[in-house]
């Protein structure tokens, strides 16, 4: 993997103000912090299902989402995260407490406990919750981009895609549709070394995913995914391209999944030295160093951000822990408008099959 890393563009301050750079730093911190707290909750058996970490990939999520037009009234750009894009959601405006409630299956989670982790939607803030089935979100986001074109809105759709997800028919059909229709869709491939335990070389024979761009007749670009400003700048160019009506774009970032597929995965398949190599390329450390080296921030400023965020996350945890679990009958949440889900007759006080 290491040999595939290109060093990021890092071209100056990328048109970002000092405050914006600090904000980006804050989102990186926030992402990592939320996941650390989730890890604690997981170990306490308070996370109900699996826990998926993005450790080492936060720059990808945060840098790319930060390049979008972010609104809270449903008029901005729209993303579909993949499982490791907690950072993108947070940048778009998702609240840490909601993420925690999702993981903890609480009644007041955005999905009422019906769905889990980052599988939740906020059209106002511009994110659409994925389902587990890999690939379908690329199709869905092609349609979101289509709606922008049909309505003459200059909005952009950004779909995140793992290296593994590129192998699905959904990726191909969805992206080809967007390419041929020249839709404002950016697909960002996060080449993070693995799909579960499967190394990228067993997923595709292609040297770099960006070589697929030509095969779809679209613009493609690639950068170091652990350099948050490089990711920001590249995504910014792609989003501008798409917004200008020049069609779909395929992006690739090279990064690395430093934890297992989910918390249960002991990563026994990882060759020795690989983790250490990538730890040294930690995106938070790198960005912090850069901010300090370039004089864009002081230690004190960054520490203050970290402290503030630690407090916010702690407050979110407390709130999430206090949240109730759903009432059983909330399972009757209807699947179609206006209809009620039939209750099992055997759970009525006096069972009567005429109510079956």
């Amino acid at each position, binding site marked *: 993997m290491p040999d595939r890393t290109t060093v990021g563009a890092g071209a100056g301050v990328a048109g970002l103000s000092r405050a914006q750079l600090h904000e980006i730093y804050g989102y990186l911190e926030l992402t990592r912090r939320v996941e650390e707290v989730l890890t604690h909750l997981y170990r306490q058996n308070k996370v109900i299902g699996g826990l998926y970490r993005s450790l080492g990939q936060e720059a990808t999520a945060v840098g790319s989402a930060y390049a979008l037009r972010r609104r809270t009234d449903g*008029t901005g750009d729209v993303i579909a995260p993949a499982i490791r894009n907690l950072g993108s959601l947070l940048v778009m405006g998702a609240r840490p407490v909601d993420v925690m409630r999702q993981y903890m299956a609480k009644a007041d989670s*955005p*999905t*009422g406990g*019906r*769905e889990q982790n980052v*599988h*939740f*939607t906020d*059209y106002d803030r511009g994110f*659409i*919750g994925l*389902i587990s*089935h890999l690939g*379908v979100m*690329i*199709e*869905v*986001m*092609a*349609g*979101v*981009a*289509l*709606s*922008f*074109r*049909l*309505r*003459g*809105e*200059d909005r952009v*759709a950004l779909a995140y895609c793992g290296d593994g997800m590129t192998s699905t*028919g*959904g990726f*191909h*059909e*969805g992206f*080809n*549709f967007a390419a*041929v*229709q020249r839709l404002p869709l950016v697909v960002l491939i996060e080449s993070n070394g693995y799909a579960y335990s499967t190394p990228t070389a067993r997923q595709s024979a292609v040297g770099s995913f960006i070589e697929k761009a030509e095969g779809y007749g679209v613009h493609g670009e690639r950068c170091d995914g652990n350099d948050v400003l490089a990711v920001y700048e590249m995504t910014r160019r792609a989003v501008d391209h798409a917004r200008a009506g020049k069609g779909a774009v395929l992006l690739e970032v090279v990064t690395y999944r430093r934890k297992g597929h989910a918390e249960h995965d002991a990563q026994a398949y990882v060759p020795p030295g690989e983790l250490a190599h990538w730890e040294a390329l930690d995106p938070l450390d790198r960005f912090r160093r850069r901010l300090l080296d370039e004089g864009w921030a002081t230690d004190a400023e960054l520490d203050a951000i970290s402290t503030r965020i630690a407090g916010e996350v702690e407050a979110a945890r407390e709130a999430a822990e206090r949240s109730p679990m759903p009432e059983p009958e909330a399972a009757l*949440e*209807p*699947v*179609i*408008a206006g*209809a009620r*889900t039939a209750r099992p007759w055997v759970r009525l006080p006096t069972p009567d*099959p*005429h109510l*079956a």
Partner: protein
Amino acid sequence: MATVAEQEHVNPPRERPEHVRNTELGKPVTFLEAIREALWEEMERDPDVFLMGEDIGIYGGAFKMTDGFLDYFGEDRVIDTPISEAGFTGAAAGAAHMGLRPVVEMQFMDFVSCAYEPLTNYIATSRWRGSGPVPMVVRGPVGGGVRGGPFHSQNPEMAFFHTPGLKIVYPSTAYDAKGLLKAAIRDDDPVLFFEHKRLYRAPALREVLPPEDFVVPLGEARIHREGTDLTIVTYGMMVHEALKAAERLAGDDGIQAEVLDLRTLLPLDEDAIVSSVKKTNRLLVVHEDTRTGGLAGEIAMRVNEKAFEWLDAPILRVTAIDTPVPYSPPLEDYYLPQVDDIVTAGKYLAGY
């Protein structure tokens, strides 16, 4: 930002082409023309409605359903897609999330199997997952008897009947087809709309339709023929075979069969089935689809739950045999349920 609606008003309204003006002119329409009118009128009525599918634009669709639509409504609202049923079905969901109302055509419904994953996992669950409604219609030709062979003759309703969150409509008359399709397009949930190819141009189905806008509500069965001796529950093409059989039963033996056309398969109009069975005490289910795992099963279960005491005879079924749809005419005729079969079963049940 200009909405589609605003853009529309830029173009002065043009004259409808002749072939979608039959009802307007008081002329009878075929089943196919009724569907075409529904699509046309909904597109005129609501600028958020748009079409996607293979060869639906310049070619007007494999069955010429959307003939003339591209010229009138333009490329943005009549979109020729690559061959990617999953892709454009999934894309329809995305567009529907954003407030549009896509109607996608499967060139043959047999190919909806390629979109099984987005339909059953993403689309059907969206509302329940809190990702909002997915107002979209997937429509296309179904059914056998046209010598289309195993991959152009399928009745794939049972692939979806088991999925909470979907609706399935399968009309049998021009009136219902038009009214149900309009209702489906206006519905806030995803609807699969099945159009039997043998009904498309059947002369006997030509009907003068009301000139005014009308819908047929989803989820309501219709009694096509009243009867007291036996209930035949069916849908689609088999409604017409059942009606023929009912005439023969009445003529030959004085057996009065009630023919109930489900029209919407999901949600199933259980009340209509149950009340007919309570009247006739005998139930025959007829479907063109194969036997094992066909819709008859769910109906049998519902009647057991709600009207067992009223049954004077076993619930029986007349269906296709359990194979793919064969190509050669003698084979396909053997495969498909025939009027004779319904008559035989009807007599058997009436005499039980």
